[in-house]
């Protein structure tokens, strides 16, 4: 989308979601602090935990995804994002690599559930049941990074990526300017 179109049309929309993530990446979005006021000048938030809009209200320019896919609901939401967003960004290491939740990937699912609900040293579960309400989304056999499930357009690494990185990226995308990420923003030690 060109600058010209940007100006003429209504403010572009941005949606965000946290799949199998810790919300740390969303905290980092909020860490842009007072710049959020500038951001609101540029965009309007659609579906996002930030404003608690649950369903998409229309087409979005950018979708920001935190966390990978651990269960079927994550997959559904991610597909929904792909459907509604022109540009999808994997935000943070969980979205990009699976992250911490993916540590279960080498352990069979049944063993994971047994350890969590039956055998773990701190488990108190006299009924010996593993939760199985139809409302609970089924887990996937392993945790998938987003780009293995749908096509992702950009990856912003970091755990979480810093507020400045997120800010720079969004501003670049929204103003159609080249992205400048100085070394300090992309070094991770």
């Amino acid at each position, binding site marked *: 989308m060109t600058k010209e179109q940007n100006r003429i049309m209504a403010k572009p929309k941005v949606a965000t979601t946290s799949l199998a993530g810790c919300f740390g990446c969303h905290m980092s979005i909020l860490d842009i602090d007072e710049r959020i006021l500038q951001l609101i000048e540029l965009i309007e938030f659609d579906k996002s935990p930030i404003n608690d809009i649950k369903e998409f209200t229309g087409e979005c320019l950018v979708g920001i995804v935190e966390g990978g896919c651990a269960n*079927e*609901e994550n*997959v*559904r939401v991610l*597909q929904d994002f792909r459907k509604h967003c022109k540009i999808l960004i994997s935000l943070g290491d969980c979205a990009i690599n699976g992250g911490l939740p993916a540590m279960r990937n080498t352990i*069979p*699912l*049944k063993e994971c*559930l047994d350890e969590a609900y039956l055998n773990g040293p701190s488990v108190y579960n006299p009924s010996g049941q*593993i939760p*199985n309400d*139809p409302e609970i*989304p*089924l*887990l*996937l*056999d*392993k945790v*998938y990074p987003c*780009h*293995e*499930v*749908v*096509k992702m357009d950009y990856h912003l690494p970091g755990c979480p990526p810093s507020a400045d990185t997120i800010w720079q990226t969004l501003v670049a995308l929204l103003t159609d300017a080249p992205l400048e990420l100085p070394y300090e923003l992309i070094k991770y030690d």
Partner: protein
Amino acid sequence: MSENLETVVKTVCEGTGNDKNRMMDIVRELQEILGGVSDDAMDLIATQVGTHRVEVESVVSFYAFLSKNQKGKTVIRLCDDIIDRMFGFERIKQTFCDALGIELGETTPDNLITLETTPCIGMCDQAPAIMVNDEIFTELSRDGAVEIVEQLRAGLAPERLRRRLGDGNNSSPLVSAGVSNNLRKRGEVIFAPLECGRALKKAIAMSPNEVIRDVKTARLRGRGGAGFPTGMKWDFTRSANGERKYVVCNADEGEPGTFKDRVVLTERPELLIEGMAIAGYAIGAQEGLIYLRAEYAYLRPFLEDTLQKARNMNMLGVDVLGKPGFNFDIRIQMGAGAYVCGEETALISSCEGLRGDPKNRPPFPAQKGYLGYPTSVNNVETFCCVARILDQGAGWFSQIGSKGSTGTKLLSISGDIRRPGVYEVPFGISMKEVLELAGGEGAAAVQVGGPSGQLIGPDMFDRIICYDDLATGGALMVFGPHRDLLKVVEYFMDFFIEESCGYCTPCRVGNVLLKNRLDEILHGKGEPLDLTYLEELGNSVKATSRCGLGQTSPNPILSSLKNFPGLYHALVKANQPFQPTFDIQKALGEAKEIAGRPSMHFAE
């Protein structure tokens, strides 16, 4: 540890003067005697030649023809390359498996026969081809395969197996191979009649610098693939500092689809020897090595004999042809089944008794080569050209061929053509003319220069064979319209994955990633961006690999993408609900079973 083993190892090591640089000879011989080089044997070798055990093991584990585990008394190696697959590999394989009652990679329970596959053994013009120990059998039929097994079972040694002898020197007693030359076209340079010693005599009448000047004037470029100007290479080697210098002949001929050096070694070994002696004179070397691929071991007795005859004629030895102070002799160094050893620095590693890892450059072999001494490595055909240049004159040579590419080129042509074989043609000939010569007018594609070269289609058959257009070490594999070209690409990638020495990550890992993505596309799980991925990753592998293997290994994919994009576009699908490799039902399978309920979101 048996005393017998100790004696055997000791004898074999002493045969090389306990020289650890001759490790290839030591382990090859032990492999032959013992059927394998066991842990105990490796310990003994290390002690005997005064090196570390790991040095021995790194050699034994590197080469395909060496093994720690004991193999059968006879090893049958089926050439499993693309051309053989086109001409009956599967049939032959099944026949052997059935007749022997074993699968590929296994040994019969009586330890008599091991069945394996190996990449191109340089017999593509007479596929399907196999090796039985060092013996070669070509155009093998199912009956032929059964007959081989029967005879081996009856106790016949591989060299006594019945075979129809090939033409030319193939039927001489020292070769007695069932190999045909299929020499379809003799040119003026390599396969013209030969008068032994004349070229060398003319060379030693000049000064070494004059010899090099002649090679330069002839504008000779290397025939091994890279096309480096030979005179310049010799100049560098001559002027490099070193108390000794070496001439090495690259007779590894491992590029699948190439077999022209085989025919040169069979019919013109004298010309090669003369060329090497001239090189020795020009650069100031006293020793030459011929690095002969293990697959051509059947030629070794014949080549040793030819060397001996050259010594008898004083073309090798002391004061060669009466030139005081010019001493030169040649030793044959056998390889042991590793494509990368055709790369000149890996070849040098192998000659030094190491695993066939390429070396860092610089220093180039011309500065620091074999054992650290200045070394010129040249292809078989290159040496032969040199001999003719010295005999007939640089002017004569440079008039043949085209301006930038003088002389003739030997082409190895195989595949879907009526007359497969070796053709000596002047540079500057078009692909179309070549195909007409070989009877391949209906070709749908030609792989030029082997897997590391490029795949071209009929719209490019007007292109010219020369260094500036279609450069090639000489391999042309021709595919008819009924062939699945992407299967060819897939096979070539497998080949590079198998043959990578593993030293650098781009080649070791990159080729696997390329192949995996290609497989997904071939299985209908590709999307258009995958093609960009292949191209970008392929170019990265090329740009960041350490030696020529990795620098060319993505070519099958890159050149088919470029010249046959339609094949790929027909397979990839855009706008799919998921990444094509993601299978939601499979991902949910376990959980559905554990929970005993279906998915809320994704009905089957």
